[in-house]
């Protein structure tokens, strides 16, 4: 039972940074913008989070600074891709490179100094329930916040007018402009929201998951988040399941020995990636579902007619 609880909670925790980053990217892509800079923004968020925490400021401030830093970094992409209509792939890639570099520079200040970690919340009564308590009520606040964000984003995209506007801009910025919506402004907001969420994902890694700063500590999680959005066919609930799938693979790989799996560690550590590819291939067969949810204008530069 303890092993099951360890795998279950481990999965939830490992999935959290992916959920933040992928949900943010979902909103960005739904508005028709492809930001390949998630990895960079996560790193910036992770480094800034540790920096603020290392400076002795309270944890909530560290988390908010990480989100703000992610949003600020995304603005760089926004200016290139939305104002100057640079190729979005190139702008996103350069943001990743930029973010990797900047986060390393920030990290120079405190090396691998240990910091106070974000600790699980003690919820009266609930946490103490046997099995249920450790399974569901023994997480740090950011885990719960990721679920709140999931609910908020699903509600926003599919139940509010603003969400409808975001989705329709992603389908046709030309038509949205024609009926009078400020396409560029809304895309900027979406991009910055995505940046803030990636920053949170990064902060989760450096403040909760492994509470210290290591250069390049995201180790490809930004790219997995990007793949998750596609694998989820641009639906929020599928992102959640996808993140759990990757999380469980990561934990299984770590717990492989305890479970008595005698596969070479190289094979185990490649499992999450292999799973992505397989699932991607399977999911892309459903043409109809994809066509309905795919933001048609994705990565296409848009300039309003004059």
């Amino acid at each position: 039972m303890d092993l099951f609880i360890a795998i279950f909670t481990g999965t939830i925790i490992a999935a959290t940074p992916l959920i933040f980053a992928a949900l943010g990217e979902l909103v960005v892509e739904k508005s028709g913008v492809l930001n390949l800079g998630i990895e960079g923004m996560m790193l910036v968020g992770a480094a800034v989070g540790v920096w603020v925490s290392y400076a002795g400021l309270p944890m909530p401030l560290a988390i908010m600074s990480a989100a703000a830093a992610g949003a600020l970094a995304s603005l760089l992409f926004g200016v290139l891709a939305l104002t100057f209509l640079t190729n979005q792939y190139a702008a996103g890639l350069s943001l990743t490179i930029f973010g990797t570099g900047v986060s390393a520079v920030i990290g120079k200040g405190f090396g691998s100094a240990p910091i106070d970690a974000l600790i699980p919340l003690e919820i009266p009564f609930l946490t103490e329930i046997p099995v249920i308590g450790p399974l569901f009520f023994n997480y740090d606040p950011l885990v719960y916040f990721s679920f709140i964000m999931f609910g908020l984003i699903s509600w926003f995209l599919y139940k509010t007018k603003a969400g409808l506007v975001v989705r329709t801009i992603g389908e046709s910025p030309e038509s949205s402009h024609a009926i009078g919506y400020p396409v560029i402004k809304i895309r900027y907001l979406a991009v910055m929201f995505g940046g803030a969420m990636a920053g949170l994902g990064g902060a989760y890694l450096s403040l909760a998951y492994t509470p210290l700063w290591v250069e390049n500590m995201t180790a490809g999680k930004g790219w997995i988040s990007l793949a998750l959005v596609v694998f989820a066919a641009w639906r929020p609930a599928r992102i959640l399941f996808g993140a759990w799938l990757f999380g469980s693979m990561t934990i299984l790989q770590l717990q492989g020995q305890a479970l008595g799996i005698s596969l070479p560690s190289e094979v185990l550590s490649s499992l999450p990636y292999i799973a992505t590819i397989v699932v991607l291939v399977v999911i892309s067969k459903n043409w109809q579902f994809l066509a309905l949810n795919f933001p048609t204008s994705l990565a296409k530069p848009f300039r309003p007619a004059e």
Partner: protein
Amino acid sequence: MPSFREIQEELPNVLETNMTPRLELRHICKRYPGVIANDDVSLSIMPGEIHAVLGENGAGKSTLMKIIYGAIRADEGEMVFDGNPIASHGPSVSRALGIEMVYQHFALFESVSVVENIALSVSGKFDLTVLANRVRDVSKKYGLPIDPHRFVYNLSVGERQRVEIVRCLMQKPKLLILDEPTSVLTPQAVIKLFETLRQLAAEGCSILYISHKLDEVQVLCDSATVLRNGLITGTAKPKQSTPIELARMMVGADLPETHLDPSTTSDTPFLNVNHLTAPSDNPFGISLNDVLLSVFGGEVVGIAGVSGNGQAELISFLSGEVLFKGADTITLGGKDVGQLDAGYRREQGLAFVPEERLGRGAVPPHHLSDNAMLTGHRLGMVKNWMIQRGKANDFAAQIIRKFNVKTTGYESAANSLSGGNLQKFIVGREIELGPKVLIISQPTWGVDVGAAAFIRQALIDLSRTGAAVLIISEELDELFEVCDRLYVICQGQLSKSLDRKNTNVEEVGLLMTGLNNNSNSDNSKAV
């Protein structure tokens, strides 16, 4: 709903009692690099008036309407609405004033429902249930049946237009702009649309009706402004003018005519489609259902139909862009080609002119010589893997000369040519290949009258030399002008063959709506 006669009687009163024009344009100018879209355009429209803006493709009509709606800005000139001058404005300001516009290419979103589409342009609380009821009310009042909860990708083009119009009517507009609204409608649907528009005008709404179709303007409109090359060339009361007078203002010359000589056809079909059934796995696509089609050498055959009824799917099977996995379904000169690609089919004597000139018919930034070589390379322009530049240039020059393409030479880029001239070049290129079968989609879409007549005559002449010509077009007038036989496509089904001499616009129109197809689906679907 008041009867048609009552509306006609009410109309003069509306015009007399309210003397402030609903909209006045004064000296509007709009320049783009290399072209003046609108040059000193002024017009005025009264409440309840239906005013036509007539002009050929490229005359500047759409630009003018977008300026009124605020989607683009004029360089000079002023606009007065209900007596108040309007400074520079965007679409949201226009909508607040009561100006609504139905675009020629609709501004609808495919992946969301009808009511969500409408919610995007309606202010107020975001409550889709309440809004859906309002949509039902408006659509009932104006006889425009739509189901608010259907997804737009499921709707036919005619239904989409209804959604656009209902979307405008939800705002109780004072001025409704319609840009070429009938180009996607069957003749019967046009009559219904005109009833709706007259009802609106009777309620005091002014209507700006953009068109290049003289007969429609004469039936519907109280007054007309004619544009040519961005300039006003005249104003008229269409009901009191003759089509010839209007055409002269619009074209600057008399309308050219085409000559359809009697044909002698081959014994066996050059192109044959035998029970082609192809389900579409794309929700935005159309499934083809048991298509039977044959085109003989020496004749021009047309496929009529509202676009989006399976034309694109059928064409891609015929051209070889999509292969058909089935034996003896598509034959070219008696040979089964269903599983052979476009290049092979071209070697067998097939030529093809797609609907999209830039990007599919020609590579936009490349010069005409390169573009001529795209399909002409089989005529000895490539030798030992090397391009014979001289031969390619000669071929391009020959097309330019024979087809009267207005350009500075074969070194001009394809996208520097006007629509009509580029179309002449592409059609010329395919005809010069000496094809046995020519398939051409929307041959004169967006082409000026002179070039359109030239292209139509070239197609007839090609068939009279023994080739089989298949035209897919939305323009019924065009098909009746050039075709020996006609088919009608509706919801992926092709009608039986109709002899042009023994059919008429009404019969073809009914087939376009699927009413004669004996299908059990909702009849309104295709209207």
